[in-house]
């Protein structure tokens, strides 16, 4: 899967969680949770969304590898081969 496709899916899920967010201006390397004001429930929902849409089951110990958009893309691309 191409990175753009993964990004689109992430944005889809984020829009459900934070509908008011302007994702176009989302910084690639900024902390996602702080930027988008995402709490732990929202973050869990993001993980569930990724699991449902991409089939990737992300262990809790990897959560910190998903702290920025850029890291998230790297991590998911790697997991999706």
């Amino acid at each position, binding site marked *: 899967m191409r990175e753009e496709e993964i990004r689109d899916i992430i944005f889809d899920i984020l829009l459900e969680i934070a*509908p*008011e967010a302007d994702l176009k201006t989302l910084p690639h390397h900024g902390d996602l949770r702080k930027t988008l*004001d995402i*709490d*732990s*429930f929202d973050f869990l929902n993001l*993980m569930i969304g990724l699991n449902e849409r991409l089939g990737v089951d*992300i*262990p*809790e110990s990897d959560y910190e590898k998903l702290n920025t958009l850029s890291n998230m893309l790297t991590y998911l691309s790697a997991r999706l081969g």
Partner: protein
Amino acid sequence: MVEFRMPSLGTDMKKGTLVEWKVKPGDHVKRGDIIAEVETEKGVIEIEVFVDGIIEKLLIQPGDEVLVGTPIALIRTEGQQETEIKAAAAEQDEGAQVKEGTESPLQYKACSIAAHRAKEQPEQTREKLRAEAGGEKRIKVSPAARKRAEELGLDLTTVRGTGPDGAISLADVEKAAIAGKPAERKAAWQIPTGPEGADFQLGMRRAIAAAMGRSNREIPHYYLETRIDLSRAVRWLTEENKKRSVKDRILPVVLLLKATALALTEVPALNGYWIEDRHQPVEAIHVGFAIALRQGGLIAPAIHHADLKSLDELMVDMKDLITRTRSGGLRSSEMTDATVTLTNLGDLGVESAFGLIYPPQVALVSFGRITDQPWVENGMIGIRPVVSATLAGDHRATDGRTGSQFLNALHRYLQEAERL
């Protein structure tokens, strides 16, 4: 050896009473011979035998009443050995026990169901009492209106019914929805993501203002804070979550919620209301869980019977509540039922909080962020994940002593996360 059993001679025959044996041990019998007379509901019936052989033993006596299928005689068919007879006799003894003991296995089943029911009873009674205590007057609402109101997240207590006996109809709900939410009507094309719009915001701020204003005016707060070592709890939860797929994972805040609810069962004085100058503890524990809305504002809908639910159930409940709070689908009972409130400001990076009690409740429990801190135990310093727990108590209802009992209990429960 053949066991001759009380025959079933009709679908309505359940048992029979032996009137007379027509044979005695040692007699030869042929298939079709009448060997006994049995009294049934229909009268005295002659019963026939279906084998050829010698009567070995008669197992019941005239006057004995036995169920259909009970062995009543042993018949030795030709060529059988003595050893078999012994085995059959042993079996027969068991049969006799069944006869004496109880009518049939079905009864056991019935009994166990009854026992089960009896066990359930107190719970049902409690439910009933709760319902009665609620004492709300039932509003008449048509099923269609009820469904629509739920879809709209509309509180039916605010709708005026125009149907027979004041029943609320579908049209009443639609009217109320339009009147209550002009913003939605104006911008119907927008994606309805939740209770948005200036009016809603304004209404909510006013409600918060009224409640918090009253709280600050009327409730003499006292505050107690303690820090709790969560290393065991976090370790347990990490292990537990490893076993689970993403969607089944449990968040730490659920442990805090359950521990709070259980601690309240030990210190019930903090769970309840101050109404009409009187402290009124409540048996049921409905924890109001403060949820911040993205567009601002705060709602603390109740998680019913939090002490009785498993961590999984609580996780599901919380997810559901958060979703519905943010999309505007809360039920009115959820808005009003809370007996205590919990706020978790950890996600916002706050270390500890000293909030205002939501009247008429008498306590507010706040948690801060779980942070790694230096911790001394048994004279050793280590790094531990620690959370700050704060209790705000209504001094009219309880004192610091009660509050400290609660925090101690909370601490204890959080050391044994696996038992939550």
